[in-house]
């Protein structure tokens, strides 16, 4: 089926519906896993192996080229990467007038509160402790959808793991239902509950 205006592999007809996630991780295994997780949630995924490549993809490298038709709804990046860390990448994205609105999620194998704090302060939307599970990614999907589209609920998950809490709307108060995911899996939830003054 031939589509007019095919840009960056995103078909125009579908681009308003499909969430496009840019995944950044230097580990090949982790890239494959995150790719699979996101595809299961019907996201389009572009996976790159470094912060530098991510910037290239976004057109934020030296060339500063505007990439025609590029639509990225969410960026998910590993923290510890050689060269440019996920934190460095986060900063660059938040400095960019074009991309600062895109939610950035950090992944790390280490659950270090000061690190999480730093990332949040720099504008990260959320922080996932590795290894990444489907429930972690499900929670994120709503950032990508945002307010652009009438908020699509997550697919029916009754047959899957139900540890994910209901999606949290950035404009509403933090989710405090007792059936929230275990605090250890969601340091962001815990921090948002205790540091609302910082918002």
């Amino acid at each position, binding site marked *: 089926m031939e589509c007019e205006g095919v840009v960056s592999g995103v078909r125009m007809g579908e681009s308003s519906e499909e969430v496009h996630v840019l995944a950044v991780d*230097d*580990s*090949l*295994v*982790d890239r*494959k*896993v995150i790719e*699979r*997780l996101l595809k*299961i949630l019907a996201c389009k995924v572009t996976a790159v192996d470094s912060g530098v490549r991510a910037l290239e993809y976004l057109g934020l490298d030296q060339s500063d080229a505007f990439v025609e038709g590029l639509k990225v709804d969410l960026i998910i990046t590993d923290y*510890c990467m050689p060269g440019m860390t996920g934190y460095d990448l986060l900063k660059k994205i938040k400095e960019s007038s074009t991309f600062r609105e895109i939610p950035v999620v950090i992944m790390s*194998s280490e659950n270090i509160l000061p690190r999480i704090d730093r990332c949040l302060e720099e504008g990260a939307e959320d922080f996932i402790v*590795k*290894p*990444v*599970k*489907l429930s972690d990614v499900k929670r994120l999907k709503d950032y990508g959808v945002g307010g652009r589209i009438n908020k699509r609920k997550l697919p029916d998950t009754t047959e*899957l*793991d139900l540890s994910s809490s209901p999606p949290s709307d950035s404009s509403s108060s933090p989710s405090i239902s007792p059936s929230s995911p275990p605090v250890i899996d969601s340091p962001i939830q815990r921090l948002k509950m205790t540091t609302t003054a910082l918002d």
Partner: protein
Amino acid sequence: MERSQPRRQVAAMKQSLFDQGLLDEQFIQLEELSDDANPNFVEEIVTLYYRDSSRLISSIEQALKERHPLDFNKLDTLMHQFKGSSSSIGAKKVKAECTLFREYCRTGNAEGCMKTFQQLKKEYASLRKKLEAYFQLARQTGPMETACRPK
């Protein structure tokens, strides 16, 4: 029933891997990502892991030979990467050896690093064989209805 026997074997084999402490919950998480279009996802990831991590193993091996003194920072960085991948596939025991190794790096214990690395390589190789056997049997048996959680 004849037909359920292989399925029970696969389940038993998996149970055994968990009982031995070789795998953790993450392995199950990966199994649940398989579907009709991607029936062998876990096997693919595990294969990728062994292929990809072999170069890390070599690098660590090389770094351990470059004594006078050992570059603990470099070793720790390499092991951090290796631990990450191992964690992503649910390789519980291998991951534990990685943690121990990194502790020895932190305390600058060369002997500890070397001993732990030998143990790690054993666990790594042993897990590979066991998973190969498991996947082979699983493939022969055909796709299971759902990933079954061991007790």
